[in-house]
Each structure stands twice: as structure tokens, then as C-alpha cells.
């Protein structure tokens, strides 16, 4: 089981690496899919099934779909792909950063106290994810309203920015 969690963590890091070294958004989004699926798998391994499902649904099923539709409307005919030398340079550079991070983290762990699992530290109360949702509606209603207003505000800001065709903020429309 711990091998599975380790593999998911590896997929997460590699997916984020693919996003960071992407040649163009159409190919970078693949790394985002792999990374978020692996991240949801890690959440599942911690026992937080609800949050993981919500993340998958909203992130991949909502935001990714909207992104794909809007980007496909503005696609350029010959984008850069994975085989370019520039992409290999970025990819190797970020792989080096990951490697250095693992080595330094490994050295730190060895001097602090041995091998650890994913959920050995940190706040324990985060595990009760479904009761957290209930909290959101009872004790945390202020935060709920503020978060809801923040999301609605994002909508208004985006609508205000794209309003006006070419006389507005975005001249290319």
C-alpha cells in the first residue's frame, strides 16, 4: 500500500513538472490532469474521500473543461510540442530541482528522525472532512459567505474585463 502512495506522490511531482516545463497549454494540461488525479489519490489514501471527489469533480470536470473549450477557440495552428529542445531543457532543469529537493529532504529526514509516512505530522483535525462541510454551514457561515462572495466577485471581475468587444480591455476580441 505504501508503494502505491509513493507511486501516486511520484506521479504528482512528475505531473507538476510537466506543467512547469510545458511547451504550450494544450500539452501542459495533460500534466495537470495527471498531477491532480495523483493528488486526489494521495488524499484518498489519507481517508478524505469527500474532499478528493469534490476536487476531481470541480477541478477536472469543471475548470479543466472550461479551460479546454476557451483555449481551443484561441488555438494557434502549429504549437510547440514535447519533442522540442527547449522543452527538454526546461524538463531536465526542473527534474534537477526535484532531485536536489529530494536529496536535501532525505538528508534532513535522516538527521531528524528516520522514514516518515505522508500523514505522520500536521493538524489531525483535517481528517474529518465531511464534518468539516457541515461546519461550513453552521459555525463557519461567515467564512462561507465570504468565500461565496469572493467567487462571485471573480465572476464580476472577469465579466467587467472582457466586456466591450474591442473597445474594452481585451483588444483582440
Amino acid at each position: 500500500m505504501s508503494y502505491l502512495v509513493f507511486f501516486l506522490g511520484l506521479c504528482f511531482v512528475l505531473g507538476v513538472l510537466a506543467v512547469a516545463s510545458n511547451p504550450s497549454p494544450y500539452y501542459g494540461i495533460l500534466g495537470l490532469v495527471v498531477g491532480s488525479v495523483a493528488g486526489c489519490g494521495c488524499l484518498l489514501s489519507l481517508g478524505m474521500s469527500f474532499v478528493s471527489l469534490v476536487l476531481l469533480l470541480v477541478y477536472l470536470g469543471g475548470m479543466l473543461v472550461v479551460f479546454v473549450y476557451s483555449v481551443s477557440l484561441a488555438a494557434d495552428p502549429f504549437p510547440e510540442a514535447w519533442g522540442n529542445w527547449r522543452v527538454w531543457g526546461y524538463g531536465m532543469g526542473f527534474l534537477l530541482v526535484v532531485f536536489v529537493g529530494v536529496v536535501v529532504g532525505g538528508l534532513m529526514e535522516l538527521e531528524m528522525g528516520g522514514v516518515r509516512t505522508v500523514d505522520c505530522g500536521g493538524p489531525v483535525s483535517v481528517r474529518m472532512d465531511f464534518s468539516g462541510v457541515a461546519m461550513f454551514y453552521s459555525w463557519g457561515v461567515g467564512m462561507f459567505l465570504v468565500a461565496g462572495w469572493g467567487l462571485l466577485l471573480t465572476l464580476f471581475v472577469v465579466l467587467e474585463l472582457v466586456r466591450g468587444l474591442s473597445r474594452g480591455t481585451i483588444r483582440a476580441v
Partner: protein
Amino acid sequence: MNPHAKLISLLSLFLGTTITISSNHWVMAWTGLEINTLAIIPLISKSHHPRAVEASIKYFLVQATASALVLFSSISNAWVTGQWDITQMTHPTSCLLLTTAIAMKLGLAPFHFWFPEVLQGTSLTTALLLSTIMKFPPMTILLMTSHSLNHTMLVSLALISAALGGWMGLNQTQTRKILAFSSISHLGWMAIIITYSPKLTILTFYLYILMTTAVFLSLNTTKTLKLSTMMTSWTKTPVLNASLMLTLLSLAGLPPLAGFMPKWLILQELTKQEMTVTATIISMLSLLGLFFYLRLAYYATITLPPNSANHMKQWHINKTTSTLTAILTSLSITLLPLTPMMFATL
């Protein structure tokens, strides 16, 4: 701009500021910062000029990165200490990361590169909003965590800010960029004393807001966007130009004007903390700023400029007197004798 969109943006600005200022939990502070960032984007790009759009993108990218750093520092602190209280920020790495994040949010050097360009891309009133209201939440976070921050880092950020604010303001002809660099150097003065006496930081901050609002509103009355406009604006509002001279010299920190009060008290506190070399360095670096303030003050009151107007004062002025500008100008010139009261009550 659409009045409904403007209302929503302004109300969200005040909501975000209030949430961050009144928060005890890191997530609420971060939420307020994000709401502020989002709400001001349409205000920055409201003229739809490419420069304004570029300014809004630059502002968004820098502030989003800084908010992410705030979140990283608060989460790493929560991981190590198990609690999310803003005043209990004990892990040193988290404090360092937070200082970097707040420096990016405020525009302290070396994270100041976005500030003059964003201010130049917007109107004078939005620039005023960016220089005053948008500094409230990050300054509040810095004040709430001031007892656990690293002295060395803040003092070095402050000295670099004072140096860059003074030096880079010397070659500017656009008034908004000059005021941006003045803001950077004033933030340097605020940051240098925050770990020794946060009260003085609050005092400097409030006085800076007072003086810079007076300057921005005076410039907005005559729509003075560059120095050459300032040379001939005396024909439209001679008295306002005369008072603008005094307000600018107050911003520069000359006694007996009000702007001297924070500098005086900060130098006194630094000397008490046995940091006389630092005090000397920062006051020498403020002399650079004094040069461009003096130049601005000179141009505001000059009556025979190179590009002369072919009349004396215009007989017909359609600018109504603004009470707010009058009050703020009077305060920013004459507040120095109230120093004991202001220092005691803060």
C-alpha cells in the same frame, strides 16, 4: 466605467481590507488579500488603454504570487506549531517567507519593480487607492506579526527601499512615478522601525497616508501628470500650487512641517537601540528623495517656466474648491506641534 461594476469593486475593496484587518486566522487574512487583489483589477484597467491593461496584469501576477507565499508561510507554520493564529507565528522559516510575501505586497525593494509601472498605468485617483488603501492589509499583517520577525532582514529591506526609492525617483518626469518612488522610500522608513517600535510604524503609515492623499488630490485637481504641466498649472490654481509646495516638502520630511515627525521619532528610536550607523545611512538616503521633492516644489511655484503660458492667472476657473483637499493639506503642513499627543495616543 459601469457604475454597478464600480460599486461592486469599491465595496469588495472595503470588504477585503476589513476582513484582513480584523482577522485572527491566517485563512481569513489570505481571503481578504485575495478579494482585494481581484476587486481592484477592473479599477486599474478602467481606461482600457494598453498601458492600463498591462498595469493590471502586472499587479495581478505580483499580488497573486505574494498571496501564495503568505499561504505557504501560514501553512508551514500551522504544520509545525499546530495552530493558525496570526500573532503566534513562531517558526523562523515561516516568518522569513512571510516577510518576503509582505514585501512583495507592499512594494518594498527588491520587490518594488511593479509599483511605478502599475501607478503610471492608472489614473491619479486609482493610484491614490493603490498607494493608501491597498497598503492597509499587508501593513496590518506585518504589525500583527512584528514581534516574531527577523530584524536583519527588515532593516536591510528598509535600507534598500530608501536607497532605490531615492535614486530611481531622481530621473523621473511623470508625477505618478515620482509618487511611487516616494511611497517605496516611505515604506522603507516604516519597515526599519517595525521590529523595535511598531507604534512608530503605525504613526509613519498614517502620516504618510495623510500627506500622500493631500498630494494626489492636489495633483488631481489640476490633472498634473508630468512636470511640464506642473510648471504652468499655477495659472489655474495659484493658491493650490503654493500649498502643494508645502505639502511636497512635508512629504520630503522637512521640519517644521508634519512629515518631519515620523523621521524624527524613528531616528530617536534607532539611536536608543544603538543603531546609529543605520540611522545615519537611512537619513542620508532620504536626502536623495529630498532633491526630487525640492524640484517638484520649485516647479509648482515657478512663475517664469521655460514653456511659459501667455497669460497670468486665468480669469475663469471651473474647478470648485475641494474641502477634503483643503483639510488634508492643512493637516499635513501643520501637524508637527501635536507630536507628543500623537505619539502618546498611538
